[in-house]
């Protein structure tokens, strides 16, 4: 049973990837809960399954074995389109590579997730403008990603993650491609979002950043080896 207040729960989640002849055990029986309004950091060596578990939390992938509960409901059997709906409305993703669409301007990138939710154009633009203000990028609205610095791109990406007002923001090494100063700024921003009521799960290599989280989950070889709170 999911505990009261747990938005997302992974219960004994296993994930096996088939790479040609070899199988990779990315996750081996992970169980964890993400509660409302938390700031959780995920740490661990490269290849330990951090991204895979965050993707599971974000309904981007389904387990080979085990279950995922969202608000106490098992989502492991949902169709790809139903999962897309959940991702679009309730989850916001921030990636290490920023992953903005290079052919779209900053504001168009921010508007994109609303397009998939059928939000009318005027409303999309208004909301995107507000979010660009929030991340202090409103003066760069019409620039293309290639014309922006890494820190600026990541701020656009955060605005994009927030645009459908999700409950949970998942950030997979959001500062991994940024210098430490810019990284600290992004971190402060995520902290601020958390104070305003967003649940945040952040993968990071940086111990200093991880220390600012309420809870830290350590992964190794697809298992949780340590859990600090």
């Amino acid at each position, binding site marked *: 049973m999911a505990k009261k207040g747990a938005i997302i729960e992974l219960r004994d989640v296993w994930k096996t990837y088939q790479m040609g002849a070899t199988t990779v055990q990315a996750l081996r029986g992970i169980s964890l809960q993400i509660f409302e309004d938390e700031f959780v950091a995920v740490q661990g060596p490269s290849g330990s399954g951090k991204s*895979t578990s965050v*993707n599971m939390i*974000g309904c*981007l*992938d389904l387990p080979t074995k085990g279950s995922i509960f969202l608000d106490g409901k098992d989502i492991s059997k949902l169709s*790809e*389109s139903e999962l*897309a*709906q959940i*991702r*679009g*409305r309730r989850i916001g*993703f921030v*990636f290490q*590579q920023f*992953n903005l*669409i*290079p*052919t*779209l301007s900053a504001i*168009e990138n921010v508007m*994109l*997730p609303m*397009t*998939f*939710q*059928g939000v009318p*154009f005027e409303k999309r633009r208004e909301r995107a403008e507000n979010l660009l203000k929030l991340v202090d990028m409103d003066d760069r609205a019409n620039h293309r990603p290639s014309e922006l610095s890494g820190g600026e791109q990541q701020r656009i990406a955060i605005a*994009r*993650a927030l645009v*459908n007002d999700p409950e949970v923001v998942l950030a997979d090494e959001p500062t991994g491609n940024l210098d430490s100063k810019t990284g600290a700024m992004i971190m402060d921003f995520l902290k601020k979002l958390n104070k305003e009521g967003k649940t945040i799960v952040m993968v990071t290599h940086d111990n200093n950043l991880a220390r600012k989280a309420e809870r830290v989950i350590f992964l190794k070889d697809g298992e949780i080896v340590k859990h600090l709170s």
Partner: protein
Amino acid sequence: MIGDYFKLSIKTFRARKLRSWLTMIGIFIGIAAVVSLVSLGQGLQKAIGDLFNQMGTDKIMVTAGSAFMGLSVGGIELKEGDLNVIKKVSGVDLAGGYIYKFAQMKFKDQTKYTYVIGYPLDESRRLIAEVAYFKISEGRELKQGDKYKADVGISLSEGKLFSKKVSVGDNIEIEGRNFNVVGGMERIGNPQDDAQVYIPMETAREILNVPEKYDMLMAKVSDAGAVQQVADRIKKRLREYRNVKEGEEDFSVETINDLRDTYGTVMAIIQAVVIGIAAISLFVGGVGIMNTMFTSVLERTSQIGVMKAVGAANHDILMIFLVESGVLGLLGGAVGIIFGMLISKFVSYITVLAGITYIESYFPWYLIVGALAFSFIIGMISGAVPAYRAMKMKPVDALRYE
């Protein structure tokens, strides 16, 4: 929503390489072929339809040998007796004929050779004029009682055959006889016809030494609806008169409808060839678009992952790529339409220059819209498999793709 897919696809185009535009050449050629075919086809049909309507559907033409468009072949001749047979066939209202012969002509010390038409002066004159498109534009027609009078084709009036213009009142010499010009003809359209000189039939028989032969016989039926039956009766009577078996006729009887059918067949063949070319080009273009789209899907794998992560459902991804390939087709089609229009304009321009009838090119809105829709659909069909592949990508795999 569909508008958003369009916007998204337009954005990708500025990043496109020349290579992907080149793949659209097939679509471009195919659509150009279709557009020029349709736009000229209508004009051609109208031009020919007008021509036939002018001739009238109540006319029957009889020529010696097996004939195509009044061109007699072989040494077989039609004579007065044949004309009399035709006149007596029931349903025939009026019948007549004319002769033509290449003859020497002199005007102001200049000598040329051109066709002389021996033209009946009786009531059958109207009939001939209608079918052969002889229309007076200045002066007067030949009339009963004229002997050494002539009407001249427009090439002579315009000073194209002889270096000087031949006007009403001038004298010209045909085969050594002097003729007084009483009228000039309207333009027929083809240079040879426009250089003709018309003289009374009896005079022509005398000076050209054609005592009995007719080059063309014509009949007008009293009921246009029964023209085919009358034509069949004429054929039967002429067989009896000329003593030939069915299927071995040394003459041919044609109605305007037959001519129309012959033209129709020729047109259908031309159309089939052009459509064949268009189909091959469109197929090649379609393969090109498919190839471009496969590349595009592969290049944008991680973008597909991102879009799925931010909430794009499978049908969104499918539509994004379908619309994109549709727009590729559409752009190829748009260029093709412009090119097809230029081709049509050019063809109608040279038909005028060449003096053939004026073939107008038509560009009705439904041709333009239809061609655009058609090229869009071809693009979408070509992009279907790549788009399906994009849709089926697993978001995590797509995100990991470098």
